[in-house]
C-alpha cells in the first residue's frame, strides 16, 4: 500500500547528519560568549541538540549581531529608552517613574511567558498591564514599534542568560496546548511547525536555511523588513506562508505556542535583540 522510494531510507539516515549542517561558530557579543547550542531538554523526543537560529544564518548576518555598534536593532533599543522615559497617560507617569533602574529587569526575559493569577502572560502583557492599570495610558499594539522597542530594551538586560521557563504545575496545561499546536498541521499546504523546524532543520527550503524556529533572540531585527519583529509576529508569518489563517497576536494559542517554543530552547542564551534575515 504505502510505498517509499529507496531514496527515502537513504535520506532518513542522512537526516541525522543533516542536523549538523549549521556551522559551529561561537557567538561572541561585545566580547561575551553566548550559548547557541545545548543538549535538548528531556521533554523533546525527536531532537538531541538544540541550536539558536543564529547558527543557521550567513556569515554576514551573524557578524551584525556580534557588535552592538553594528547591530541594526540597537537603533530601536535607543527608541525604547526614549519610550521608557516618556510620560504618558492620566497618571502623569513614565515607566522610569517606577522602574528607576532598567537593569532590574535582568532575569525576567528567560522566564517568560509565565503563569500569573492563573493566566499565561508574555512580556507584552506585563508592559501593557503597567500602561493601562498603573499609568492610565492606552495599551500598545502587540507587535507595534513602541512595544517591540521596549521589549527589546527589557530583553537586552538578560542577554546571555539561559532560557528557563516553568512548564510544570499551573503552566502544564498551557504547555500541553502549545505542544499540540506545534505538531498540528494547518493551512492549504497542510504543514505543522514540526515539519519544517524539527524534521528538516539544517536543510535549505528554497533560499532559506531552516533553523529550529527558536525564540531566544526575540524581538528580532529582520533584514527582510528592517524592523524589530515580535515572537507572535513571526508565528503569524510562518502560518501565512503555509496558507493558514494565523491565530491572533497576543491570543491564547500564540501564548501557549510561545511557552512551548521557549521550553524547546531551555539553556540557550537570550540574544535579544537578535539579527536574522
Amino acid at each position, binding site marked *: 500500500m*504505502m510505498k517509499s522510494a529507496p*531514496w527515502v531510507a537513504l535520506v532518513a539516515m542522512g537526516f541525522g547528519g543533516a542536523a549538523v549542517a549549521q556551522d559551529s561558530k561561537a557567538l561572541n557579543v561585545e566580547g561575551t560568549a553566548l550559548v547557541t547550542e545545548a543538549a535538548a531538554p528531556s521533554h523533546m523526543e525527536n531532537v538531541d541538540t538544540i541550536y539558536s537560529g543564529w547558527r543557521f544564518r550567513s556569515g554576514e548576518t551573524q557578524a551584525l549581531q556580534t557588535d552592538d555598534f553594528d547591530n541594526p536593532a540597537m537603533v530601536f533599543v535607543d527608541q525604547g529608552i526614549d519610550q521608557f522615559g516618556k510620560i504618558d497617560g492620566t497618571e502623569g507617569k513614565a515607566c522610569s517613574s517606577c522602574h528607576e533602574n532598567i537593569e532590574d529587569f535582568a532575569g525576567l526575559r528567560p522566564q517568560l511567558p509565565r503563569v500569573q493569577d492563573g493566566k499565561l502572560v508574555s512580556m507584552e502583557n506585563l508592559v501593557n498591564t503597567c500602561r493601562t492599570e498603573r499609568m492610565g495610558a492606552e495599551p500598545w499594539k502587540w507587535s507595534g514599534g513602541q512595544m517591540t522597542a521596549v521589549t527589546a530594551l527589557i530583553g537586552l538586560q538578560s542577554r546571555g542568560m539561559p532560557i528557563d521557563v516553568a512548564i510544570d504545575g499551573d503552566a502544564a496545561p498551557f504547555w500541553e496546548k502549545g505542544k499540540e499546536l506545534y505538531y498540528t498541521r494547518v*493551512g492549504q499546504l*497542510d*504543514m505543522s511547525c514540526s515539519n519544517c523546524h524539527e524534521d528538516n532543520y539544517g536543510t*535549505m527550503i*528554497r533560499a532559506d536555511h531552516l533553523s529550529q524556529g527558536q525564540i531566544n533572540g526575540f524581538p528580532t531585527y529582520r533584514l527582510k523588513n528592517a524592523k524589530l519583529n515580535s515572537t507572535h509576529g513571526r508565528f503569524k508569518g510562518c502560518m501565512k506562508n503555509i496558507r*493558514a*489563517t494565523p491565530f491572533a497576536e497576543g491570543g491564547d494559542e500564540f501564548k501557549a505556542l510561545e511557552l512551548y517554543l521557549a521550553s524547546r530552547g531551555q539553556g540557550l542564551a537570550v540574544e535579544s535583540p537578535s539579527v536574522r534575515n
Partner: protein
Amino acid sequence: MKHAMGFAAIAVFGASMAFAEDVKPMAVSFADGSVEAALTSTAGDPANGRKVFANRKQGNCLACHMNADLPEESFHGEVGPPMDGVADRWTKAELRGIVTNSKMMFEGTIMPAFYVDSGYERPLDEFAGKSILTAQQVEDIVAYLITLKED
C-alpha cells in the same frame, strides 16, 4: 434550506462549466499511491509544467527539490530528493499520484497534496475549498517530470 440548495447547485454548475471533463479533486482514484487515468482530456504540456514547477505561487516544487534542469533558477531546496532522473525511478501513473496527493504514496510526508480541495484545517480564506494546482497544471507537471531521465 431552499437557499442553501440553490447555492450548492450554482456552485456545482459553475465548476462544471469551467472544467467540464476534469476529474474533481476528491474523485481522483488511487491504486497503491498511483493515479492511472489522466485528470484532464488535454495532454499535459511539459514546457508549462517546467514553469509551474519553479513558480513560487504555483508548484514551488523547487522550494524542496533540486533540479539540474532549471539552472537559471538560483535557489534550489533540499528538503526532498533531487528531481534528476525522477522518470527513471517512477512511472507516469506514480508521478501523477505523487503530485496529486503525495500522502497516498509517502505516509506523513511534508510534501503538500497539490490536487485536493478539502481535508486541511484553517486555510486562509482566499485558499479555502481550493486545490493548490488545477488539474491541467498537475498534468503539465507530470508531462514535465516524465522528461527528467538520466539513463
